[in-house]
């Protein structure tokens, strides 16, 4: 019997959700760096 989510399920569950968080984190860090330079 299968004992874990399929690889494709893990991929589609985690990649889009975490990708949007990482992209938001990157743009926040870039904003902070720009603020620091001023």
């Amino acid at each position, binding site marked *: 019997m299968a004992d874990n989510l399929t690889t494709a399920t893990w991929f589609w*569950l985690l990649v889009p959700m975490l990708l949007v968080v990482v992209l*938001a984190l990157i743009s926040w860090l870039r*904003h902070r760096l720009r603020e620091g330079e001023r």
Partner: protein
Amino acid sequence: MSGALEIDLPLLTTFVVYLALMVLVGLLAYRLTRSLADYILGGRRLGPGTAALSAGASDMSGWLLMGLPGAVYGAGMNQIWIAVGLAIGAYLNWQLIAARLRRYTEVAKDSITIPAYFENRFRDGSSTLRVVSAVVILLFFTFYTSAGLVAAGTLFEDTFGVDYTLALAVGAAVILTYTLLGGFLAVSWTDFLQGILMFIALIVVPVLTVLELGGWPATAGTVGDLEPGALDAFNDVTLFGIVSLMAWGLGYFGQPHVLARFMAIRSLQDIPAARLIGIGWMAFALLGSIFTGFAGIAFFEGTGTLDNAETVFIALIQAMFSPWVAGCLLAAVLAAIMSTIDSQLLVSSSALSEDFYKRFLRPAAGDRELVWVGRATVLAIGALATVLALDPESAVLDLVAYAWAGFGAAFGPVVILSVFWRGMTRNGAVAGIVVGAVTVLVWEQLGGGIFEMYEILPGFILATLAILVFSRIGGRPGEEIEQEFDKVAGSLR
């Protein structure tokens, strides 16, 4: 497994304390509300945390704690696609629209509602755009608010054995009290607190359930033994179905109660932090919701063993936690429902107070008068929604099925193109709203083949085409409009 449960002292106490806290927040906000702009947009002074969490909490209704876990509990991981689409849609909304709309609504004669923004952005002297969009908001959100109240009343009747009418009356009274007193600030601050509560519950419940079951391998193994198909997101779904479900994410661009949070944020400098908080909240809350439903399959030994799949989150809390902790976690369900109702109620009220009363009846009215008109309209719409909710079977509540798609298709393309396209005209905007709304209404009535597609996708595409075509036909939008667009674009660089 789950049945009516007599409301006990710990549950009653935590709910009463929670509801009293919401009213207290309303009283605090009351002291800071002096103008209609304060009342319906908080004077544009939301910090990043409040803007982010109140956007998330007002967007996510009881669906996050009941609908989504229930769907995963009932059918497995093939139910994740709406959540994936919503996460992407919410991110794009924050990334593409938030800053532009915040800036544009301020430059375009300080527009404090979406209908006012449409009118001012396109210099619509006929007020067609304002009236049409305000009527659409008023109509759909009154029924939407009503449906939220029905959901809350039914939940309390079915799960806790509380009389439906009593639950409805108490819930409506609390929501009306803090919304009426404190307006947008009260709604945003309570949404912020409710967002935190929902987030904690959606992390704690699935994590502790999985630990209780012996860890992740044991949980997934049990589900694999009971329902092997539940482990696969592609089980029993087609590509057509996946696209249709992910299309829910398109709805964000046109939801007035979410866009109001963008318009109310304190400064453009706060948007990157707000976006990070908002998207982080949403992604982990959605994952928590999905894993709650999934772990529920193992905990309750298979799908179909609960009377009502949508109570899986509630049933897990009742089974695992002491009554006092359970009371606090169950308040999150109340929070999810209330935080959506209050925001929709306030947006409906703003359509009456700002877009009709101030615009057409009393343009010269003072701040004090307008704030009290705002409060009166909250009371009137809230009372109407409550009366409609007295009959949970009322056919008018079916309108809610259209609301997400209707707003998404009618307003979404207009909002997006209005902040990105210099050449968009008033006629293009009117055409976009009409074509988007009509497509959703007609598509829903048709069935079979391509018409099984969620109506937001065709509505969104056709509305976009209508805007492009009708803006081209009528010539350029006018020098004043183009100059204003350039001013906004320049200030965003």
